[in-house]
């Protein structure tokens, strides 16, 4: 469904992605592992049209993303949960959710339904719905960021390091969410440094190093033989 073929990208003069090829099929959870700075986030940014792509192709459901404006991706079904979460700090929780909810073709009834669903997953958001986003704790902001993406009813969510800086209890919650989304048929491209979580949630995993994909295997294989993980992540 989402296919990156030989993608190259540059930040100014530095060549940050080298021939990256990744595929995420409908409903799949795919992991993207690697140490800090290897280009995982850059890969997501390339998909979102935020990095300067200098080679290769990115297609979604067969359609080349090249000409699509940055605000058109949500409409295609691609949602992004960035590493820094980037919730709108001065908007309330509800308003944050509304940025994804107020789309053409969504009836008020369906909106109510979506909100209820998300509140069911994240009761704390219902409680804080009229509070400014900036007043939420780190974990709550992460939940809001994911909930906000869910408002788009996406076909795929680009999830960038959701467990970074979170307490272990919250990590468990994130894990549950990923499972729940998977059950609903939403594809996820999960960028993480948390290996156990990734191996548990994902079906396939790509491992990156220095801007290129170095290894690609099923999660089962990697669980069975952890040497590759040790080699690339030193874990």
């Amino acid at each position: 469904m989402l296919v990156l073929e030989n993608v190259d990208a540059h930040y100014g003069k530095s060549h940050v992605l080298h021939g990256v090829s990744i595929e995420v099929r409908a409903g799949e959870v795919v992991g993207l592992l690697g140490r800090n700075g290897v280009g995982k986030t850059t890969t997501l940014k390339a998909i979102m049209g935020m990095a300067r792509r200098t080679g290769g192709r990115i297609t979604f459901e067969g359609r080349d993303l090249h000409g699509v404006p940055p605000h058109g991706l949500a409409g295609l079904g691609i949602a992004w949960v960035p590493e820094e979460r980037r919730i709108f700090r001065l908007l309330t929780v509800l308003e944050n959710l509304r940025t994804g909810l107020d789309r053409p073709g969504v009836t008020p009834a369906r909106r109510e339904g979506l909100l209820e669903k998300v509140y069911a997953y994240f009761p704390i958001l219902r409680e804080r719905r009229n509070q400014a986003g900036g007043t939420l704790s780190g974990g709550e902001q992460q939940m809001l960021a994911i909930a906000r993406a869910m408002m788009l009813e996406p076909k795929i969510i680009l999830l960038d390091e959701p467990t970074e800086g979170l307490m272990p209890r919250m990590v468990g919650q994130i894990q549950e969410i990923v499972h729940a989304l998977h059950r609903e048929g939403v594809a996820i491209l999960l960028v993480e440094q948390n290996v156990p979580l990734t191996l548990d949630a994902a079906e396939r995993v790509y491992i990156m190093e220095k801007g290129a994909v170095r290894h690609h295997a099923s999660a089962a294989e990697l669980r069975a033989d952890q040497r590759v993980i040790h080699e690339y992540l030193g874990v």
Partner: protein
Amino acid sequence: MDQIIIQTLHGLVNGMVLAMVASGLTLIFGIMDIVNFAHGDLLMLGAFVGASVLGVTGNYWLALLVAAVVIGVLGALLQITTLRPLIGRDPLTTILATFGVSLVIQKYALWQWGPSVRRISEPVPGDFVLFHLQYPWYRIATAVLAGLIITGLWLFLKYGKYGIWIRATTQDRVMAQAMGIPVPLVYTGVFAIGSAMAAASGVLFGPFAGVTQTMGFDFTLRAFIVVVVGGMGNLGGSILASIFVSLLESYAAIVVSPAQAVIVSFIVLVLTMLFRPTGLFVPTPK
């Protein structure tokens, strides 16, 4: 004492009109980092359009509405043709571009309406009487109307779907785009709103001093000052600053000539930039 009351009223009324102008300017700056040099000239153009419509129809309110709509659309067109191509470039190029627009608009107005002063007659006749003081009703009406329009803007930003789009885009353009908000359209929309408000201010201000081609620059300058003093991008701040500066100027006009009273606003600007550069009415950044 009488002088002080009259000047206070002047200050408040002028402050409200200025607040309307500054709101548009600060909204535009807050969302797309554009210092709209032509803002005052859009006001001027609005005043002329209003004067013409008034001349033809005799209806002040229609003139106000038409001026706002026409200049709003013009603003949108301007943004699309001259400012969109500059997105991503050095922000100072937008100052240059809007400066060019300002020149063209001024001379166009001169060409279209000629050099004589146009009059916009008062929408509400008569004077308001308080004890033995008289103050024109229309000025009070102007202040009230300006207040209503600004409140309308505030409500629109706070509650509407588009208000959320605008606020989200102002805070984080990239994330707003990722959420599917059509940011280029939001930019155009905000510029149109700002332009419409400027035009309406022009029509409101028309009865005060007549309509001339050069009235715009004065407003642009004052609006800049007020936006900086209030904190760039800060709507509430620019409103407070408008009233504050206008009051100071009015009081100064008791002592010096109006032409010199203008220096008061300059001094406020200079002091603000020296000691509280983020804005007088903005909490000190940590």
